[in-house]
């Protein structure tokens, strides 16, 4: 060992470690410095507020990186506007309740629910609605215990981890099992409801799942439904949007389609879309993964020398050998 690590209490060799015990400027210090409310005649430049909060980066990223999803993007923009205006109102000393931002994302598999939730956490953080901006993604397993008395500590543990951020509960309808009235899921739901109501400042809960099953879940838990202000539906992608998603994924992985591959890729998506268990963007990703495999195999089988062009271009046969084209 070259150097003994210094303790925080006293400066180490180079004197760069800060003193631990120094009282920190935290929420208390900030609260003291809260400026007096602006006079009623004052004006606030919303454009500057917007630039200061740097929300446009997140909104633009949402627009460029996610294809389609117009209802979702509209709602997110509305929420951003509301929080921004609320901030301006607070500067005038107008007291308004903190908005209820618990949400429910419904939509088919692979429609971008988790991705949007991550972006949302970032956005809410920049607007000062949540303090940390992290996303804690959980499923039934993380919330519901296996024996009596196990559920409450487990759920609380997860809630504590999510505080200051967004709690994303994937496939939330599994929490409630109608066929077993002694299922521990009910207990987790009750704790969740309590926290959603009482600790709105500390975390935002996002439930996600397939539309029909979420509807059934809400009809058996009306309390849950009424505590969620925003029910956002993620539509399935149109063929054109799927193609664009595929292009985006390929360019991110450093691949591109040969011109003669494009109709084949379009045809592939059409066929894949008609088949059961089509999972939107996730299916597109898998299709590209498999095309990469075939591409690599094709190059190896051919042997000899390859150019950069060969390495990045996907040919029609990379897609045509798929099972989708079998009949």
């Amino acid at each position: 060992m070259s150097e003994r690590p210094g303790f925080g209490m006293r400066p180490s060799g180079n004197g760069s470690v800060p003193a631990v015990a120094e009282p920190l400027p935290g929420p208390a210090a900030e609260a003291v410095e809260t400026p007096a409310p602006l006079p009623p005649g004052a004006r606030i430049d919303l454009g500057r507020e917007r630039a200061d909060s740097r929300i446009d980066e997140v909104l633009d990223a949402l627009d460029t990186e996610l294809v389609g999803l117009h209802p979702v993007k509209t709602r997110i923009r509305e929420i951003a506007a509301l929080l921004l205006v609320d901030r301006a109102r607070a500067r005038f000393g107008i007291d308004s309740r903190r908005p209820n931002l618990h949400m429910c994302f419904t939509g088919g598999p692979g429609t971008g629910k988790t991705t949007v939730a991550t972006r949302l956490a970032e956005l809410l953080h920049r607007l000062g609605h949540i303090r940390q901006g992290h996303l804690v993604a959980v499923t039934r397993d993380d919330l519901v215990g296996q024996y009596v008395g196990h559920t409450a500590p487990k759920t609380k543990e997860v809630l504590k981890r999510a505080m200051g951020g967004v709690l994303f509960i994937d496939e939330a309808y599994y929490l409630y099992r109608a066929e077993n009235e002694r299922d521990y899921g009910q207990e987790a739901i009750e704790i969740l409801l309590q926290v959603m109501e009482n600790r709105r400042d500390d975390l935002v809960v996002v439930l996600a799942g397939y539309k029909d099953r979420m509807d059934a879940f809400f009809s058996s838990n009306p309390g849950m439904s009424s505590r969620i202000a925003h029910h956002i539906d993620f539509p399935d992608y149109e063929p054109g949007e799927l193609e664009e998603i595929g292009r985006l994924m390929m360019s991110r992985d450093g691949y591109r389609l040969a011109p003669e591959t494009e109709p084949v890729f379009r045809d592939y998506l059409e066929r894949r879309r008609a088949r059961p268990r089509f999972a939107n963007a996730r299916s597109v990703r898998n299709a590209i993964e498999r095309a990469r495999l075939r591409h690599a195999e094709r190059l190896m089988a051919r042997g000899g020398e390859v150019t950069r062009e060969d390495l990045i271009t996907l040919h029609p046969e990379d897609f045509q050998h798929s099972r989708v084209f079998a009949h």
Partner: protein
Amino acid sequence: MRITQGTFSYLPDLTDEEIAAQVAYALGKGWPCSIEFTDDPHPRNSYWEMWGLPMFDLADPAGVLYELNECRRAYPDHYIRLNAYDAGYGRQTTALSFIVQRPAEEPGFRLDREETSDRRVRFRLHPYALDRPQGDRHR
């Protein structure tokens, strides 16, 4: 007699906001926090009762404050302290520990003189609180 143990013990008691700020500092350094309580104020009583497990993977002080308030509700007249553990290689010890609740009345200590063999005299520190049974010491 006000007991002084751990960091900040010569300062006035911290407010909840100040505690939250210290917890935020600890979490920012990657130190998990834990809560412990006791009603035996003897300075050599270093192993206090644990209030649940140490809280790992937290990002925000709200979770720690929540547990702290639960503990305060369950033990309104006990000492409660908050520890932050630095698991970093070469340190691996409690990095920050401070009292976040003390009973309203702290009876203090008395010095007992004890005569042992060969006319030697030993002194012993005895907290008055220990005269009463556990759980009933600071009522």
